[in-house]
């Protein structure tokens, strides 16, 4: 059943690409609407429009950089890698959070492209937002491996952690997070609750909880098991639909919640048992 649905969605994606190519052939330029605001100098919010020539390969970031180079150098924009690895150029493009470098102009199928700063992030200027809140939440879930026994200086037997491919698969996709903040911007709970850690932080909590190398329990942490924590997620799924790296935060959050409610197997216990059995064999 899932295979059939996947094939149908691939066909739809293919026809969508064909349509976007056809629409692009008829279009050699687009109108770029860029949100402008600089509260520091009392500049009120407004939109500036720019005519930008496009090619088949033009991304929204390319279009913005063209406007910045040849039309208005004062456009505030943050970017770096241009290949969807750094997560710097997240913004709302035609109302949906996307990476500007990862969004081809042709796939938007529109002659007017609107660029706005990511919502739910404090605005600094134009398309640039403040990620301080976001990273505070990220840090609050202790996004690193906690293993009290992993003192590699004295305990040579722990110099490597053995994991099966299946154990790696449990957390691998969550580890692809580039912290671009698109999920945080799309989340309706983040929109109303500043204390909610957000999909990114909770997905990272799952990522380390599911890692068999980690022995620290995150479920008892106040930021997660709290009325503003994981229980505020109501599975709107928007975080997963906008994620450019296939992290699927909604999946991680639901699995972590199932684990906290003891609906799923205790992976940590299994890992500890394996670790002890492995240790007994080597000694």
């Amino acid at each position, binding site marked *: *059943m*899932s295979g059939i*649905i*996947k094939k149908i*969605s691939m066909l739809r*994606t293919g026809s969508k690409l064909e349509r976007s190519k056809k629409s692009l052939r008829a279009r050699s330029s687009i109108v770029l609407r860029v949100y402008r605001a600089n*509260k*520091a100098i009392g500049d009120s919010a407004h939109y500036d429009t720019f005519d930008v020539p496009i090619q088949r390969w033009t991304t929204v970031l390319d279009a913005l950089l063209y406007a910045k180079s040849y039309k208005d150098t004062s456009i505030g924009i943050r970017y770096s890698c241009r290949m969807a690895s750094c997560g710097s150029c997240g913004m709302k493009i035609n*109302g*949906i959070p996307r990476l500007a470098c990862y969004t081809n102009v042709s796939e938007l199928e529109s002659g007017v492209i609107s660029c706005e*700063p990511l*919502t*739910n*992030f*404090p*605005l*600094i200027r134009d398309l640039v937002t*403040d990620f*301080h*809140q976001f990273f*505070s939440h990220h840090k609050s879930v202790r996004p690193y491996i906690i293993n009290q026994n992993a003192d590699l200086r004295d305990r040579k037997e722990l110099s490597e952690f053995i994991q099966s491919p299946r154990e790696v*698969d*449990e957390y*691998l*996709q969550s580890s*692809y997070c580039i912290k671009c903040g698109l999920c945080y911007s*799309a*989340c*309706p709970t*983040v*929109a*109303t609750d*500043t*204390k909610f850690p957000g999909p990114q932080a909770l997905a990272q909590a799952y990522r380390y909880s599911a890692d068999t190398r980690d022995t620290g329990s995150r479920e008892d942490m106040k930021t997660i098991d709290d009325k503003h924590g994981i229980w505020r*997620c*109501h*599975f*709107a*799924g*928007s975080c*997963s*639909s*906008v*994620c*450019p*790296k*296939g*992290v*699927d935060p*909604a*999946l*991680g959050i*639901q*699995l972590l*919640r*199932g*684990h906290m*409610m003891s*609906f*799923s197997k205790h992976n940590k216990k299994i890992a500890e048992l394996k670790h002890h059995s492995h240790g007994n064999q080597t000694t």
Partner: protein
Amino acid sequence: MRTSNRRGLFKTAEEDRNNREGLKGWLNPSRYGWERVSYWLQRLTGLFLLIYFIGHIYETSSLTGGAGAWNAMLQFTETPWGHLFLILVIGTSTYHSTNGIRLIFTEAGRGLGRPGRPDYPYDALSLNYRQKSGIWIALILAAVAMFYGGNVLFGGD
């Protein structure tokens, strides 16, 4: 790390609501697919049922005033608008309960599949056909219940 005594754009992260979408964030369900529509409908139907529940308590409490008071209260729903309101109650309660059952399983980590290695175009595993089927079943059941209710209420005797 920023300190907590910063002002303006740089005030404490926990207090800063600048550029938050607020209620607009969930009042517009059109941008993110069926799961977001389902989330929106679940909330709206929940609020509607809460209002209905308060009204229902008020209505049934009229029983303490005797049969006359109860019959007078019933007259409110004996009009076409009253019938339409009751049909809406039938539809919202059916959708809310059916979709709620789906969410009980989903929010416990069931029906989502196992995490794996994502491939381009990175379709989210959690937004799978099981979830979409659940949403559609809830919508269809609500429509059928409303149709049946309408038939009973407006069908006459």
